[in-house]
């Protein structure tokens, strides 16, 4: 492992580089109110973050990343457009792999800008790539926005679409919902029984708890209404599956997705954005012709990226966490903005892993 003093020196240098690129230095507190993060990520975050508490402030979390506090700070008081940089520790519980660090430094660069998202995406990607030049890393890219546009455009009910949308970041549940809505998965017997009866059904057992009988009846009605709806069509399903499987260098990926768009025309605007971003990246000297693109990339990471996503991975050490990662998170600013929102994109680097790769040994 590289020495801590070296890691700190590298982090400081990277932050200075980002400052020179026009970012303002910010330094959010180590302890974050747990409430916000729990609301965003749900119970799953408890497996990934350290939670502590006191009687006065309740549950506090050792910051698992900087993005959420930086967004909150910007939404409260930020001037527009804004660029921020930070360097500091983040903390992640590791219950399954003792070799993964539970505390490490991140250096980040975040852009809040209403004009020209393609250019902001390219700016962040190129700036990160520049810091990593010469290192044996491979970039992976994706775009969650294309998949979201595909779901949005399906010829099915709003209820089904919002259920699918809610599970974009949980690929297994997404798949099982999709199979059900496409009529591929058999209904459980309990559901068949429920649907074969009529009228309100609750009342035989006492209605206990905060979920009221009216809510139960309302859902039964919904299920009955849903059962009467036609399944998602086979050609839409196949197109969606083909889209999720796209994994190619960028130019070929775009070509494939243009073909898929014949059956899923709703993704066309997202593809135009991808092409604009690709052009902006090329203009910044990125070799886009050999850049990898995976339509499903980023679906298993923390669920706030909703557009461009990318990561840089050590070529020779596939088990290593990404050396850098980032993406666009417009929806997060909306969730934390209390009625306000702003397009935003950012990325973080791990100076410890950069030094490790430079030393050429684990």
């Amino acid at each position: 492992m590289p020495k801590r003093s070296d890691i700190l020196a590298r982090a400081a240098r990277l932050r200075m580089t980002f400052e020179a690129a026009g970012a303002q230095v910010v330094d959010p507190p180590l302890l974050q109110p747990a409430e916000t993060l729990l609301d965003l990520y749900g119970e799953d975050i408890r497996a990934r973050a350290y939670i502590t508490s006191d009687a006065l402030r309740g549950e506090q979390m050792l910051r698992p990343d900087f993005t959420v506090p930086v967004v909150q700070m910007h939404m409260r008081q930020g001037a527009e457009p804004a660029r921020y940089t930070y360097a500091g520790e983040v903390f992640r519980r590791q219950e399954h792999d003792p070799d993964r660090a539970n505390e490490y430094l991140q250096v980040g660069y975040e852009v809040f800008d209403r004009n020209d998202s393609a250019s902001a995406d390219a700016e962040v990607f190129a700036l990160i790539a520049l810091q990593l030049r010469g290192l044996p890393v491979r970039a992976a890219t994706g775009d969650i926005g294309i998949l979201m546009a595909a779901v949005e455009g399906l010829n099915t009910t709003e209820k089904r679409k919002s259920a699918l949308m809610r599970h974009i970041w949980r690929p297994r549940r997404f798949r099982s919902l999709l199979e059900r809505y496409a009529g591929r998965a058999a209904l459980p017997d309990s559901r068949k029984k429920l649907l074969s009866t009529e009228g309100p059904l609750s009342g035989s057992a006492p209605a206990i708890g905060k979920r009221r009988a009216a809510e139960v009846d309302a859902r039964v009605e919904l299920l009955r209404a849903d059962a009467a709806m036609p399944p998602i069509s086979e050609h839409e399903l196949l197109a969606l599956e083909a889209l999720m499987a796209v994994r190619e260098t960028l130019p070929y990926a775009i070509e494939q997705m243009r073909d898929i768009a014949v059956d899923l025309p709703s993704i066309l605007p997202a593809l135009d954005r991808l092409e604009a971003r690709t052009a902006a990246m090329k203009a910044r000297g990125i070799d886009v012709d050999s850049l990898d693109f995976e339509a499903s990339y980023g679906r298993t990471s923390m669920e706030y990226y909703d557009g461009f996503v990318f990561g840089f991975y050590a070529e020779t050490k596939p088990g290593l966490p990404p050396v850098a990662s980032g993406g666009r998170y417009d929806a997060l600013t909306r969730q934390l903005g209390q009625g306000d929102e702003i397009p935003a994109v950012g990325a973080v680097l791990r100076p410890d892993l950069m030094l490790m790769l430079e030393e050429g040994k684990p």
Partner: protein
Amino acid sequence: MSLKLGVPSKGRLMEKTFDWFAKRDITLSRTGSEREYAGAVDGVDGVELVLLSAGEIPRELAAGRIHLGVTGTDLVQEKLPRWEQQIEELEPMGFGFADLVLAVPQFWIDVDTLDDLDAVAAAFRQTHGHRLRIATKYHRLVREFLTDAGVADYQLVDSQGATEGTVKNETAEMVADITSTGETLRANHLKLLSDGLVLKSQATLWRSREADYDPAEKKALKDLLSLIEQAG
């Protein structure tokens, strides 16, 4: 030094453990006054009885402070991440059967599977402004189970006892609890989810991989295990 055997210090679990060892010609007994947690082992030399709360036995095994211990699979898996690295399962003991299950109010006729639960959790959160609360003391097991199943919009609330009553008291919407027959759940107007079995548990004899074993302790372990094997 002698081989330390950790056994639950009270109740039916202790009695059944004593019976189990007695069938294998090893007599465990409590010594001293009723209130004193001291014990004796007859039938095998060099073994010391340590009486502990069943919930503390996983931790003591993992720390290597006891060599052998009797406790439930549920407690081991809840308390010890990567438990296989720290302890070894020697013998399932055939009692203390208990399933960790997810249970919802019986009148939720629209909920039978994890699919249903997930959909209801989303709707509940929209209606009530907070995530659907699940009362449990098995936080890690339940969370990992639900993460695996892709269930979202729920929240675990801690309940160290009388968990089945939390729904009626409206401090939780459902529970994740240990049951052997399901009777307590039914009495509290709760029902199981058909695919909501988190874990099947029974009392089990475990060996610590972390403890040191000196020659005398090694011999005692060998003797004890051969007595157990003979009976098997």
